[in-house]
């Protein structure tokens, strides 16, 4: 959506500005003002712009939502190509390298600003507790390198390559620094986080896609036919919404056979999440359908003799797609959180699958958090992602509402 709309942006702006009375018009636009009749009169482009373009213009004014769009784009990029961002094999274990704290990227060495680098570390066993203590070894430095050669893989599953975004000069084999530390089994957290992003994000998107289809079909049927069908579907929705979600999800996921392969569990979890998730969207669609049916422009279209099909697809659908997109955007973070809950409790995805929830399982009790606080980092990524999607969704929802200010 972003790529398609971007080239239009300057043109749209000019169209709004150019015929405007002097320099005041763009100022009003920028000040987040409602589209007053006066402003609209000076901007003929507004009259002929399709609904999605109007939405985009309004959305663009919401700066925070725009930032969130970029944040989400970045996360989505990681999700499609985690191999490119990872520095290690996410499943490679090394018992001797367990619980290494994050090796932070530094830019100051001996009081001077230098190219980003990472200090080496050395493990020493505490003679009393026999615990491994990792200390920074300021003698060895591994400067950051970009686009380095590493493990070969297929970019987007297609292009064979061996370039990775980041690497470290002078580090080979076991010494490759761990940017976010390692977990109980000595697995690299940074790389796991990259791969986890793929599964967590895609599970949210797939589950929402499933519930959107269910929601649109059932909500549409409900709003279109009305009467008994509507009544039955509405009661079903009420029943499902009254169920306490987490116990139901737990019971459903607990019923998945333990012997199932990872992919099948993944698919089953998305279905389980969608099973209770579609009700909200169905309500939204039905509500839109009902209120749009009463709108003047729909009546007008009917009066000039448009067929039922044309009224629905040419007039009603375009004016509620933006609402649906907003509702869907707001549903994705919920799904991501739900997957995290399930996996965290050990009933969602199971290792060797990597998701944020599976990673957080490592931090399930106080001891592990006290010993290795960095195990909570996947939780931060959950928060950032959900936050970005929520703000993005709110921005879209406001932009989609033709009566909003």
């Amino acid at each position, binding site marked *: 959506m972003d790529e398609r709309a971007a080239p239009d942006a300057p043109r749209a702006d000019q169209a709004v500005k150019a015929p405007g009375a002097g320099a005041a018009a763009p100022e009003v636009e920028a000040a987040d003002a409602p589209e007053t009749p006066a402003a609209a009169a000076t901007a003929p482009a507004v009259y002929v712009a399709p609904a999605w373009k109007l939405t985009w213009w309004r959305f663009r004014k919401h700066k925070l939502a725009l930032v969130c769009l970029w944040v989400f784009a970045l996360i989505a990029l990681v999700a499609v190509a985690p191999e490119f961002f990872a520095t290690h094999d996410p499943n490679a274990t090394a018992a001797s390298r367990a619980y290494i704290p994050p090796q932070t990227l530094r830019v100051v060495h001996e009081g001077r600003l230098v190219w980003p680098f990472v200090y080496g570390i050395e493990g020493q066993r505490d003679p009393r507790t026999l615990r491994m203590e990792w200390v920074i070894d300021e003698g060895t430095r591994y400067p950051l390198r970009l686009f380095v050669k590493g493990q070969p893989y297929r970019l987007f599953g297609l292009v064979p390559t061996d370039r990775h975004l980041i690497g470290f000069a002078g580090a080979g084999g076991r010494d490759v620094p761990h940017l976010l530390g390692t977990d109980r089994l000595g697995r690299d957290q940074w790389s796991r986080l990259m791969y986890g992003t793929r599964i967590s994000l895609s599970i949210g998107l797939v589950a929402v896609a499933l519930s959107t289809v269910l929601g649109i079909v059932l909500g549409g049927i409900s709003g279109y036919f009305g009467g008994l069908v509507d009544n039955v579907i509405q009661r079903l929705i009420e029943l499902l919404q009254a169920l306490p979600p987490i*116990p139901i999800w737990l019971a459903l996921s607990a019923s998945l056979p333990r012997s199932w392969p990872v992919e099948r569990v993944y698919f089953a979890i998305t279905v389980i999440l969608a099973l209770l998730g579609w009700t909200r969207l169905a309500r939204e669609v039905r509500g839109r359908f009902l209120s749009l049916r009463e709108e003047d422009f729909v009546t007008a279209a009917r009066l000039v003799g448009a067929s039922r099909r044309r009224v629905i697809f040419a007039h009603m659908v375009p004016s509620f797609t933006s609402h649906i997109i907003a509702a869907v955007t707001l549903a994705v973070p919920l799904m991501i959180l739900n997957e995290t809950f399930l996996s965290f409790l050990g009933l969602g995805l199971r290792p060797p699958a990597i998701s944020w929830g599976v990673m957080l399982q490592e931090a*399930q009790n106080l001891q592990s958090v006290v010993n290795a*606080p960095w195990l909570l980092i996947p939780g931060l990524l959950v928060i950032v992602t959900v936050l970005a999607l929520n*703000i993005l969704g709110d921005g879209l929802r406001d932009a989609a509402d033709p009566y909003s200010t």
Partner: protein
Amino acid sequence: MHWYVLKRLAVAPLMLFLFSVIAFALIQAPPGDFLTSYIAELAQGGSSLQQSQIEALRRQYGLDRPIYEQYLRWVGSILRGDLGISLEWRRSNAELIGERLLLTLALTTGSLLFTWLVAIPVGIVSATKQYSFVDYLFTVLNYVGLATPNFMLALVLMWVAFDRLGVSVTGLFSPEYAQAPWSWARFVDLLRHIWLPMIVLGVAGTAQIARVVRANLLDELKKPYAEMARAKGLPEWKLVLKYPTRVAIAPVVSTLGWYFPQLLSGGLVVSVVMSLPTIGPLLLRALISQDMYLAGTIILIFCALTVVGTLVSDILLAVLDPRIRMDAA
């Protein structure tokens, strides 16, 4: 009014019946039954059961009967007040659930009260002082609260308490009171532990509900009647509290219907992390070991609590808002 309440009361048993079917279907869904997982467990420990013993056990638990008969037996015994016996613990479910249920309710209700006590005043302040510091703070808190999984919050708070204060804030009782019978001292001990999980559980909802109150109040404050009262010289605080606030709070009461199940569900995860002796960890364990009647009973209890929550919110709303009574009549 009476008709409305009666109508609501009539729907509740129907909902409960449907929920009991769902709960039973859920616990029947896993392949195999308790005995298969029990036998697998025994086999892991190196011992095994005779075929005849297995048959006897199966008959004893009624696992050899057709599904609908098992369902009727299950519901029948629950209606008679017999919650059955946990297959895993070999103790009566009522005994296992009893105190945990009480503590779950205490936690959920406490959390609900905390939410309302904080959210409503904050919502009022945010609306009357729109775009003030408090207003912005709660907008930010709302987004962050919605985005933070509550177990994450629990873990971080536990970590901070341990790291800075050196105290471990898990559980609901100090060790010396954990198994003790109820007494005043034990109650005080409970109060000293329950506040943290209560807050953890309520934070996200607090921010959310404060937003609802704020939005509604902002709408109300613009209405002509508020302007009228102002013109007649009513002090602003009196005006706000007397009329618009009452209207703005009504939807908050109606949200109880969905907020209550949300709290119950959320409490489940928080309880696992903070090792609270509530019903949640018991359900998790029962589901994993396929202790089906225990799991089913707990799910049914969760559903029943939800139905009660919805019922209470419907009735409260009818008391508060005359329009709803009129509609239903």
